[in-house]
């Protein structure tokens, strides 16, 4: 997967910008606050539909403008090329287009393009609040399971509605049944359970990958353990238990739960017997799966196939129902929801000690990096091709060993976008094959010494080789850039290296 061309309009500090990228490593260098990260943010927006940093999405819009657009031409091995657009409007409204066609919902963009972002802000995955870790999980899973986003949206809405109702009932007591609390409970259970289910499923795989990568990053000196801490006690997965739990279903809830189940599956009746049966089914099913796969992990699933057998989901639902019932009195007293995915967390242990509390910053950063690289692998497994890697100003944060490891990891593996303040951290042979852009106050200039001047279409020259603001009077001509180049080379000690014209690839792209 790679971004061939990126067009920004009224996005952050860019009025109009058009850039073409190299297939491998693309480096954006310049002083801080010049707009380097904004380019990564734009690419990330196309993958996640979410802003990396803005608390309100209208912050993405250039000052005094009504809307911002990000458009990219994406080259995909599996699904062919696509042009993707995200538009952000004042009032935080967004629309998305795929090949120029407007899609009904913003989430319809998910799955079209994948990117993994790693920057210093990702340290909060380890050091921050549980909400930071849930946010990380949500963003990661949404890239491989658009269905998750749909369920998450419903869940958040149900949660807000149920909290409001619980507060109302606390302040003005009425029979909860009359006000439909039982139905909101079932909705909470239905959507909450799919979130628990998916989070456990993906985190299981993600932690294996992260633990492996972490061992590589630390030369096996440190052992990482990633643990999902769900807000409820999840039923042990059928593969891990041989005794079915006793099923407690209060009779007055069973009518409603039957219907809630009918919404998602074809199960006609929920009575303890069928639940027990279906659990056995789940057990048998997974044993059979294990047997057929030997030592291996469950095969990566495509986006369309269900992530797990439905039976697992049912056992989570009944566990959630039982535990929710258990806190019913306390919820009524406090007037708010006490259990659910909104209270999940993840814990990280290095050699058995909690990395959040006792890890050094270097260790915490390594955990964050391992998680991001694991996410990369997870997406690669699910999508069938590597996502794009976005590395925001991480070169100076990592020690020599980890930096080398990271660069060799991304090199020739995927298209990578790196922001940095200087080019010193890069080996010369890497710089030789990379596409290099200088970013100064919202103007992006590609390193002209490396780029052959396209002669066949001289009129579009500035746009083809140079991204620049459209409104400023067009003075940043090639001549000016060429004049600037030696200065850049001097500053970054690049002059002796003779640089082949690799980044010309993007320019020479047919069509």
């Amino acid at each position, binding site marked *: 997967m790679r971004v061939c061309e990126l067009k920004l309009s009224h996005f952050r500090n860019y009025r109009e910008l058009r850039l073409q990228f190299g297939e491998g490593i693309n480096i954006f260098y310049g002083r801080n606050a010049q707009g380097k990260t904004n380019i990564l943010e734009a690419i990330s927006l196309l993958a996640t539909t979410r802003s990396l940093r803005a608390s309100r999405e209208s912050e993405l819009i250039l000052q005094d403008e009504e809307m911002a657009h990000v458009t990219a031409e994406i080259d995909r091995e599996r699904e062919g090329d696509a042009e993707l657009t995200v538009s952000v409007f004042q009032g935080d409204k967004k629309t998305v287009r795929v090949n120029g066609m407007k899609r*009904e*919902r913003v989430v319809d963009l998910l799955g079209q393009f994948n990117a993994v972002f790693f920057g210093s802000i990702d340290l909060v995955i380890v050091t921050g609040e549980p909400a930071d870790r849930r946010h990380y999980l949500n963003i990661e899973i949404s890239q491989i399971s658009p269905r998750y986003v*749909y369920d998450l949206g*419903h869940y958040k*809405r*149900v949660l*807000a*509605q*149920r909290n*409001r*109702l619980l507060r*109302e009932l606390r302040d003005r007591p009425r029979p909860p049944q*009359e*006000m*439909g609390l*039982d*139905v*909101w409970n*079932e*909705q909470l259970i239905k959507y909450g359970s799919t979130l628990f289910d998916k989070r456990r499923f993906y985190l299981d795989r993600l932690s294996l990958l992260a633990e492996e990568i972490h061992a590589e990053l630390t030369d096996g000196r440190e052992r990482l353990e990633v643990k999902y801490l769900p807000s409820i006690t999840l039923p042990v997965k059928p593969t891990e238990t041989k005794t079915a739990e006793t099923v407690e279903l209060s009779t007055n809830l069973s*009518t*409603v739960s039957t*219907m*809630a189940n*009918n*919404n998602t599956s074809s199960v006609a009746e929920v009575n303890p017997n069928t639940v027990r049966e279906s659990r056995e089914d789940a057990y048998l099913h997974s044993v059979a799966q294990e047997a057929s796969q030997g030592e291996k992990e469950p095969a990566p699933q495509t986006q369309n196939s269900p992530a797990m057998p439905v039976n697992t989901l049912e056992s989570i639902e009944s566990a959630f129902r039982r535990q929710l019932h258990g806190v019913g009195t306390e919820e009524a007293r406090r007037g708010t929801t006490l259990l659910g995915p909104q209270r999940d967390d993840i814990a990280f242990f290095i050699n058995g000690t909690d990395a959040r509390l006792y890890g050094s910053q270097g260790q915490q950063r390594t955990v964050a990096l391992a998680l991001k690289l694991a996410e990369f692998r997870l997406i690669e497994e699910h999508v069938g091709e590597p996502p794009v890697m976005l590395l925001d100003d991480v070169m100076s944060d990592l020690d020599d060993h980890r930096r080398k490891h990271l660069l060799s990891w991304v090199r020739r593996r995927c298209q990578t976008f790196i922001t940095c303040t200087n080019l010193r951290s890069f080996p010369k042979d890497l710089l030789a094959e990379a596409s290099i852009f200088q970013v100064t106050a919202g103007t992006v200039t590609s390193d002209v010494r490396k780029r052959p001047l396209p002669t066949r279409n001289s009129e579009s020259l500035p746009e083809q080789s140079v991204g620049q603001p459209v409104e400023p009077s067009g003075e940043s001509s090639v001549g000016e850039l060429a004049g600037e180049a030696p200065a850049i080379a001097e500053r970054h000690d690049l002059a002796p290296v003779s640089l082949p014209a690799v980044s010309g690839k993007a320019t020479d792209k047919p069509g």
Partner: protein
Amino acid sequence: MFHYAKPLAHLVAELERLPGIGPKSAQRMAFHILRQPQDEAKQLAEAILTVKESIRLCSVCSNFTDQEKCEICRDTKRDPALLCVVAETRDLIAMEKTNEFKGMYHVLQGLISPMDNIGPELLKIRELFPRVVDGVKEVILALNPTTEGQTTSLFLASRLKPLGVKVSQIASGLPAGGDLDYADQATLISALQWRREM
């Protein structure tokens, strides 16, 4: 600083209270009305007053009507054993446009939504039960597939099923979050055909 003359400011403020009308549109509308001939403006004012005075809820189905019973409830050729529950009159009209449904309707006049202070007791649910016991064989729930629509469907199904009536839900071939009244007719027809028992 310049302000609109009081009557004009008043009109703008009133128009701004309408759903989907921002300050700019409100001003545009106000100036349009100002430029209209006197009798056109009068017609608009009268239409607003008449609708408030003459339109009420049908005593049977809670649809909007200018009589005691709405046109559909007076239609004797319709099948009283089939009852379609919708949230709003505009959803009823969307269903009617398909020309596929020949039963009766029940308009809830909203969906359960605690955040909007709408509990089941504020909807026309109490009026639904006597109708269901009185010869209805199947209740078809045709509510939007939003969180609130789903929850209201579940609420109704759990309360109606003990009465021994068949309860079904139109298939959610509708785009999630989509509205019935925007759904094209073909989508709505197939959603009706592929309804599932709840």
